[in-house]
């Protein structure tokens, strides 16, 4: 059987798409090549890199967990309910996406800094945000929460609310319908949002560097090494964080995030 020749439109689309893929791929490959063989071992042998890697991943994880606890209920409400000021809330949640992150750091400093409202309030309890892990977490939360909330909202919106109506008539309370019917159907999307948020968190620089320069997360360490010692010193931590992010993303997405419901490809038929 003869295969059909691809349509010119498909060919043009593929070529244009390849340009974009190359745009992402070439710098990544170039960085790895530049780092040279053995860069991974070299990077992991450096104490500050190991500490920084652990700090970056764990801070982003804590930030994601905290936003998850409040963001999932918010995402559900945004997907299901109409309420006064809903548009405003949606706009506010998305604000960090368009906010320059150094400006976000300044804004956070006015609240969580030593002279900020919460900074002063929480200092007697031993919780300080400037140059502390708490500050890193707050900065990561602020800039990356839209990724979790928006993705989770979309996931809940894809679940027909009538499933919950049926569950209610079968004896479930609103919370029961959420946990037994909506969340099990939306969890992959919610988890994808959490993953995106974590990924955005580990790459944050601008807000963190203003609020908590120390202890150093990987982006700050890369910046500091580049400024102080040049490109070759900055490469090992840079390549390391890229590999960690890549592996986590690829593995988790493959297992957790199937193709979106409702989307069809030409060759699905």
């Amino acid at each position: 059987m003869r295969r059909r020749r691809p349509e010119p439109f498909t060919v043009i689309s593929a070529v244009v798409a390849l340009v974009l893929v190359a745009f992402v791929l070439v710098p990544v490959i170039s960085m790895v090549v530049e780092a040279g063989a053995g860069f991974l071992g070299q990077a992991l042998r450096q104490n500050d890199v190991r500490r920084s890697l652990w700090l970056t991943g764990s801070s982003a994880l804590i930030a994601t967990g905290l936003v998850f606890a409040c963001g999932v209920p918010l995402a559900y409400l945004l997907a299901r309910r109409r309420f006064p000021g809903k548009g405003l809330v949606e706009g506010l949640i998305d604000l960090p996406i368009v906010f320059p992150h150094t400006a976000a750091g300044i804004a956070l400093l006015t609240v969580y800094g030593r002279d900020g409202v919460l900074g002063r309030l929480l200092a007697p309890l031993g919780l300080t945000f400037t140059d502390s892990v708490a500050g890193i977490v707050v900065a990561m939360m602020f800039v990356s929460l839209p990724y979790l909330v928006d993705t989770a909202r979309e996931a809940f919106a894809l679940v027909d609310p009538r499933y919950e109506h049926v569950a209610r008539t079968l004896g479930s309370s609103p919370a029961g319908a959420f946990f037994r019917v909506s969340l099990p159907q939306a969890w992959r999307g919610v988890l994808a949002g959490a993953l995106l948020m974590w990924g955005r968190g580990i790459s944050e620089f601008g807000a963190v560097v203003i609020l908590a320069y120390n202890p150093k997360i990987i982006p700050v360490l890369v910046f500091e090494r580049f400024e102080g010692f040049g490109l070759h010193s900055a490469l090992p931590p840079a390549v390391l964080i890229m590999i960690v992010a890549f592996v986590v993303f690829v593995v988790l997405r493959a297992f957790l995030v199937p193709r979106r419901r409702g989307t069809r490809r030409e060759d699905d038929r």
Partner: protein
Amino acid sequence: MIGLDGLRVRGGRFVVGPVDLHLAAGDYCGLVGPSGAGKTLLLEAVAGIRSPVAGQVLVEGQDLTGTPPEKRGVGLVFQDGLLFPHLTVAGNVRYGLRRRAVASLDGLVRDLGVEELMERSPGSLSGGERQRVALARALAPGPRVLLLDEPLSAVDGEAREELREMLQRVTRRRGVTVLHVTHDVGEMFSLANTCAVLVDGGLRQVGTPSEVLRRPVDEDVARLFGARNVLRVARPPQGDGRTVLLEGGSPVRVGEPVHAAEALVVVRPEDVTLVLSGRAAGGGGAEGGASEPNLLKGRIERVVSHGGHSLVRVMVPPAIEVSVPSREVGRLELETGAEVELRFSPEMVWVLPAQG
């Protein structure tokens, strides 16, 4: 058993009601209306999913208007079944049951023929199977009222017929009161003993299906129930009030005296007999009544086949449609332009007040 007292429900700018509807225990009520009439809104209010803006929902005399859905004892089945996709069929059917009550499911799953499906996932079921499982899931907790929102419309052919029979059998056996939303009048006739007609958010008529068919309260209800000939009366009735002059000049005898100055005359296509050169072709109206039948002459304007029967439009004037078995259309060579005679009994003519 179930009573709706002055119930008003809002969906955006659209308001349904006030609706007053009372059903006895075990009644099977077909809630019929065209698309957009507000049937589903009303059903949601009875289920407790939507709060009414006024009125009451009573079940066994108990006011449930402010009661949440999970405490109403009401089962709900949607058109597309809406089985929980993350659970197996067994998980779906058992969803509303406490652990100890699972053993009582045997009879229900047998009656609905879902025994063999219990370990399957909802995605692997056919449309008819899905609806049977949805029905089992809704009935499993033993609801007092079953609400069905177009439960047969996503199922075709034999599966639809099978599901209809199961629905009838299972609901009767369990004595559950049913409110079944449909826009399919035939479906309602085959299942319901009570019919409620909702048009443009208003409950127009409640009665037995045959009452609504034979005695529609207005033109909308008449047309919804397939009365294609709703004819305007040109002049108030004379003499004994039983003869009216239709627009177009044709006189028609009616079964009961007409008192309204402005009225509409309803003649169902299947109640008219079409005669060509002395041969009867269709309908049974001419022989149906004791009094002298109406005889009108006209010319065929068009013949439209609907499978087993055809609708023949005859210009008298006015234009009157007659239902004729399709095999007769061929046998009698009913063609456009042919001159024919229409016969129908005065008892088969229903008079309505003209709508504003």
